[in-house]
């Protein structure tokens, strides 16, 4: 749950400082709270709604343990890309090359491990370096040579796609060593006594719940200390319960199948890490600053070129990671891998609250946006909706999300 003040511009504080409107029932404060935090919670509610709808439509198939596990595995790479893409978009740029770069890194991984028999951990490290190099190259041209990012990464999109086909000679290459496959579709190992659930996943879930509760309570206390408006007590309790319930449900679902997928752990670490960086690190602040007003950031002594360069370098590394996950999951490097992933990542960022002009957005928003698309995909697959109609619906979802945002902003008059 995001408490970031950057994306959600809170409405003017009400006189009661949100100490809970007593005797007002539960519904009124809930609605008021929602109205005031529409930007923050709007997409989360939409996501919940989509989940519930598909759960009904698929007669409960959506939230079957196996399907939830699948959902995570299927969407992990888009979510990884969405994190980096969000940062790129906040900085006021765009990256169209990530889909091709994912495929290219997959091809490199195949060349190293399958063709040249290199041990997979070394190959993974090398692949991440390749991603960093690709990102650095593009970042250099964008930041230091001043070529627009749209052009550089459009070129990169063609270039890396071509290099992928050259490297693979148009063939699909596989399979990967077993260890590497685990990155894409492995699960946490099982420990301890035989319960009906996956023990380590349960433990992890419990730790996560504790962490979430602690974080929320601490945030709230800090906001109160800053005499900022906080959610009314009951609403806050409701939010906590909802959060805990969500984590608990996912944990139980995963634990009753094969446990938590390894990518989910990787993703969790990435989300936590990048959220922290974007909110608290000087680097993150500088990204918001150059995206919000580049000339002002420059004149404030922000090293805008270096920040831009690093944002693209970072995107390259994340694209490489996504490439490894995709390759490992398919257990093969394919010339057609990663097609239109860049668009899904960009859509995720915009559904999740990014702004075309930069300066706005959160990592968590990108994840929520990615999940909205992911659940739509998965749900429609379960309902055997054809890919033709899937595209139509996803397009409409993107329009609706951004349209809602624009409407909401206009209504609040900011």
């Amino acid at each position, binding site marked *: 749950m995001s408490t970031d003040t*950057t994306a959600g511009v809170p409405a003017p504080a009400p006189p009661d400082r949100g100490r809970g409107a007593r005797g007002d029932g539960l519904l009124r404060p809930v609605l008021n709270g929602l109205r005031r935090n529409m930007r923050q919670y709007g997409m989360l509610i939409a996501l919940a709604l989509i989940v519930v709808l598909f759960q009904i439509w698929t007669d409960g198939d959506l939230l079957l343990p196996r399907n939830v596990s699948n959902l995570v595995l299927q969407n992990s790479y888009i979510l990884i890309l969405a994190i980096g893409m969000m940062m790129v978009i906040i900085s006021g740029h765009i990256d169209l090359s990530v889909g091709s770069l994912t495929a290219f890194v997959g091809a490199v991984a195949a060349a190293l491990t399958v063709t040249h028999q290199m041990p997979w951990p070394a190959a993974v490290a090398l692949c991440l370096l390749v991603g960093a190099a690709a990102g650095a190259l593009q970042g250099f041209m964008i930041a230091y040579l001043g070529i627009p990012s749209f052009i550089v990464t459009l070129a990169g999109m063609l270039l890396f796609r071509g290099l992928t086909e050259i490297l693979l000679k148009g063939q699909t290459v596989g399979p990967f060593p077993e260890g590497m496959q685990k990155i894409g579709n492995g699960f946490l190992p099982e420990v301890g006594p035989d319960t009906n659930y996956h023990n380590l996943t349960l433990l992890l879930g419990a730790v996560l719940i504790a962490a979430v509760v602690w974080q929320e309570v601490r945030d709230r206390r*800090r906001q109160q200390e*800053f005499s900022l408006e906080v959610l009314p007590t009951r609403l806050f309790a409701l939010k906590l319960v909802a959060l805990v319930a969500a984590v608990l449900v996912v944990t139980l679902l995963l634990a009753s199948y094969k446990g938590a997928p390894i990518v989910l752990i990787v993703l969790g670490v990435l989300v936590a890490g990048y959220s922290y960086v974007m909110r608290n*690190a000087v680097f993150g602040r*500088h990204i918001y600053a150059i995206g*919000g007003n580049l*000339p*002002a950031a420059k*004149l404030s*002594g922000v090293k805008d070129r270096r920040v831009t360069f690093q944002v693209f370098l970072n995107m390259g590394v994340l694209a490489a990671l996504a490439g490894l996950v995709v390759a490992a999951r398919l257990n093969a490097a394919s010339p057609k891998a990663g097609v239109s992933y860049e668009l899904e990542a960009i859509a995720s960022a915009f559904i999740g609250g990014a702004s075309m002009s930069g300066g706005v957005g959160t990592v968590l928003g990108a994840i929520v946006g990615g999940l909205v698309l992911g659940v739509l995909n998965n749900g429609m697959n379960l309902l055997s909706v054809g890919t033709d109609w899937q595209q139509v619906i996803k397009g409409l979802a993107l329009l609706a999300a951004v349209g809602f945002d624009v409407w909401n902003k206009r209504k609040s008059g900011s």
Partner: protein
Amino acid sequence: MAAPVLEMRSIVKTFPGVTALSDVNLTVRRGEVHAICGENGAGKSTLMKVLSGVHPYGTYEGEILFENEPCRFKDIRASEQRGIVIIHQELALVPYLSLAENIFLGNEHARRGFIDWNATLRHATELLRRVGLDEHPETRVADIGVGKQQLVEIAKALSKSVKLLILDEPTAALNDEDSRKLLALILELKKQGITSIIISHKLNEIRAVADSVTILRDGRTIETLDVKAPGTTEERIIAGMVGRDLDHRFPERTPHRPERDAPAALEIRGWTVFHPIDRQRKVVDDVSLQVRRGEIVGIAGLMGAGRTELAMSVFGRSYGRYAAGTVLKDGREIRTRTVAEAVAHGIAYVTEDRKRYGLNLIDTVNRNISLTALHKVARRGVVDEHAERQVAEGFRTSMNIKAPTVFEPVGRLSGGNQQKVVLSKWIFAGPDVLILDEPTRGIDVGAKYEIYTVIDRLAAQGKAVLFISSELPELLGMCDRIYTMAAGRLTGEVSRAEATQEVLMRHMTKDTKGTRSAGSANGTRGTRGEGVTR
């Protein structure tokens, strides 16, 4: 006295939660130039929006009579049909279209949807001549200076057979020469029978062109004065605007006692910069100056004199192409090739354009303040939000920034409060030298006074202040010494004792050597002494 052409009676306009206008009355006589003035937020612009139909009939109370007929405009087009045309502060011209195309934009000479170019060009030439603009109608708007663009706006208004012309701060972006021309044009149009309403902050302009002035304060009409009457002085108008006698517009300056032996805090030697695009043109030409600790030193000059360009190029070469010159801090040469280097050497530059160069408007007050020196509230690259907030709260109190919390987006604050945020962010950076570029531009009288107080306090703390301003009274009121610039060169240095507006203006319009090119459309060529405004 001519009969009233416009009467606005008991106008009340409320926005959710705010009453912008409560009982405003305005009577404008036929053929006069009527000025409206008041502090920011007094309701001037809202009143004009009510008049021109931006706020349509029904969203306000009260009545409007134009030429003795009641008006119920539903949009701008309706008011334009009656001959009421408003020219906004931000010009509404399309830069890459020609003058002629702009003049008739939305009002094209067309037959069956196709433009009649002959009629368009003929008519445009005529209108351009009428506003005294000697440019070909097919010239692109982007290729002429701001002063001329303003004239194009007026030509556009004339094309709509304007009877009542409303100008919202028409000279805010113009240099003295262009302002003079524009004001002369307004007088010329007056002879042709066009009534004008001008909103202005510049009292001297009001005195120069207006026949009467209506003063608004807090959404009410305070009074309407006859400008030509002997009792109507600038002090009189200011008193009406602020509602109190303002015998001192500037704080008492703590006199500066220079330490003769100590080297200057900032010294610039032989600074020369070329224009970023026109590489032959020297924008700053061999400028040398010094500022000592505790001293406030002014730089006066007309637009195009190179003051901002000098400041920005010294501050991390943020403008133009550096050619020559050195910067010394406390007698030692320093490098200021990037903004970061300049900041590290204790130099701060507070921009003249806070929205574009000063602030991230979508971000909060506290994050804007901390941006220049994030490292001061961060440890190992991680920002301590608690410390950051305390810093911001400190400035909110000490600078009297009016914001509900420090987490308010700066874009929602008024101009004066935004300026205080920009100042805070640079004070937080902890500089020894502050270069302030038009620090009171576009903010109201009360906030100006607060800013002056802050500047005086900074000097008293031993900081060196370089104060760039276009408002001569402000320089005279605040500075210990004043340099003047013209066409990129330093043309004079005047002490506090000998400085008067006339002396400064003489230096600012000094014709520098014949080697100087005329420069752009905005270049200063004038050698005429006093403008119509001084």
